[in-house]
């Protein structure tokens, strides 16, 4: 494989990391917020799909892609609100509820989205940061979609907010020790539900990026489990928002690896390439977890870090 091919594969991975990684980024940030407050939301897969559908629908009906983005965030927030409220009830297991919400969200999205499969809707633009280059690969690799910088900013904002603001502290406290939070007079349920809803809104932005930017169309195969994998991503990133950014880029790049290699002539084994990100996450978990201490960074109320 010559240097040209290698560099084109690397650039393709970089381009893919941003393109494919954007929904991963938003969903993992949304899940991060939810989990920091002590709740797991497996329903984000449903949120992703329904927000993709609604943002496409609103964009198509209103003619404005950004209106679609708002709709995506809004519908994501609504579905996550349902999850938050229902899971707050006693004796309701949030993992089970998450799977149920996922099913409901996907069902609603497919049902309401039937008339949206054929039409085309206005899509989000992108910034061509690579306009100075001659190489088409570099140019396309630096084609940043409008939502990606928003996601990056959000990651840093969340990171800062968890450490430095009152709300961030409240969320973390509710996630680490609900007793301590209650002792301070905070309503654990309220904070958790708000965090879940906000997490859903953020994940909704990921759905909007799927249907309004890449691939930029609505159909029923749009999501391939990105919402579920976000849960693994958040653990991979040890509940740190900026690390979620890195993890999302990694998974996005891994998703682009298969087609990139094929386009320079290396074929076969594409399924095994697909399996790499999951196997890698599992490996990292095996290497870093220990039965004797809680996974570093895990919110104690989550019950995930053992």
């Amino acid at each position, binding site marked *: 494989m010559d240097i040209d091919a290698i560099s084109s594969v690397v650039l393709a991975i970089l381009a893919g990391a941003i393109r494919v990684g954007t929904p991963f980024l938003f969903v993992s940030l949304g899940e991060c917020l939810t989990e920091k407050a002590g709740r797991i939301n497996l329903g984000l897969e449903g949120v992703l799909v329904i927000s993709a559908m609604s943002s496409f629908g609103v964009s198509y009906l209103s003619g404005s892609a950004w209106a679609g983005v708002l709709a995506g965030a809004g519908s994501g927030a609504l579905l996550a609100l349902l999850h938050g409220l229902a899971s707050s009830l006693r004796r309701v297991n949030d993992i089970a509820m998450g799977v149920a919400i996922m099913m409901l969200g996907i069902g609603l999205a497919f049902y309401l989205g039937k008339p949206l499969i054929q039409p085309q809707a206005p899509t989000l633009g992108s910034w061509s940061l690579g306009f100075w280059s001659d190489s088409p690969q570099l140019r*396309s690799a630096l084609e940043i979609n409008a939502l990606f910088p928003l996601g990056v900013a959000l990651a840093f904002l969340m990171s800062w907010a968890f450490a430095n603001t009152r709300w961030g502290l409240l969320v973390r406290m509710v996630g680490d020790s609900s007793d301590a939070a209650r002792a301070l007079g905070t309503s654990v349920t309220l904070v958790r539900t708000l965090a879940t809803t906000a997490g859903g809104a953020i994940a909704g932005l990921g759905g909007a990026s799927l249907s309004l930017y*890449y691939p930029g*169309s609505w*159909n*029923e195969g749009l999501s391939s489990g990105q919402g579920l994998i976000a849960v693994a991503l958040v653990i991979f990133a040890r509940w740190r928002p900026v690390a979620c950014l890195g993890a999302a880029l990694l998974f996005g790049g891994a998703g682009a690896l298969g087609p990139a290699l094929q*386009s320079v002539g290396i074929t076969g084994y594409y399924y095994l390439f697909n399996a790499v990100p999951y196997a890698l996450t599992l490996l990292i978990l095996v290497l870093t977890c220990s039965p004797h201490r809680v996974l570093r960074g895990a919110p104690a109320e989550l019950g995930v870090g053992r």
Partner: protein
Amino acid sequence: MHKETWNRRELLLGVGAAGIGALGSGLPISALAQTSITVGFIYVGTRDDYGYNQAHAESAAELKKLPGIKVIEEENVPETQSVQRSMQGMISQDGAALIFPTSFGYFNPHVVTVAQRNPKTRFAHCGGLWTQGKDPANAGSYFGYIDEGQYLNGVVAGHMSKSKKLGFIAAKPIPQVMRNINAFTLGARSVDPSITTTVIFTGDWSLPVKEAEATNSLADQGVDVFTMHVDSPKVIVETAARRRRFVCGYHADQSKLAPQAYLTGAEWNWITPVKAMVEAARSSKTHPNFIRGGLKEGFVKTSPYGAMVTPVARKNADDVKARMLKGEFNIFAGEIKDNTGKVVVAKGVSLNQTAIELESMNYLVEGVIGRG
């Protein structure tokens, strides 16, 4: 409300009686012999996917327009027990006499099983799998030689490509797909032998993110005309258009999605075999077990040329198409080498569309970058 419907029914009866009277007055006997029939269609995906399923749904829609035919449809039926249940339900609960299970993967074992259990019902599977002696007589196959359309796509692409690099995004490396890739490439290379086609396999029939990724990847490599063999070409067409490249369609007409980028397309014209099957069922003739055809027989068609297609390209493609329509043109005519240098069709050998060797094609011709 009650009175209204009663009156409407009376009116309909009256009109019907008048109609039958009119019919009897001068039309041929065969028209009177047409009985009402319920026909079922089963799709593996959504009906309006701008692709494989839509092509079938379009034939169902055309069928609905014909008198005396009741069409029931089910979509998103996976290739599992579900399709057996759907077929059986159409037979037991809706009285279907002819069923079109349109997805390739339905045949074995699902259609065979249900056909054996319901010898009086006819099954017409799309895919060309029916084998004499092995499969029940009430099951039949139909398929089209759409590689002819892909060859014409290739001819047009060959003229329109400036970088001389074409791209083909495919789902899985199975013979039908390989045949399309090869036909496309041969068509393009008949215009310019230096043209190459890079193929990317996504791994499954409907993976929109991977298809978009593959399109972008190929566009990065300098590919400027795309075509595909996936269930729903919508994403590839739109992505290629966004990258300001050309695209040739497949399955159905996607020109509405990208009028400036769409050159032409290879489409199915399923109404031809579907009507044949329905007519045979209605007039109680034997169920056709194996019907196939290409452009000449009207099983496939090509999309109108897009605005950007040059007159030279149009003429070249039209000439080849005319020869295909007369039955004078074979795509796989020797000598053809595959992309490892081996000779796969010897010099002087000209395989016509029904040649059995083409059914198990497992090579990619010279000029294709990629491997199955």
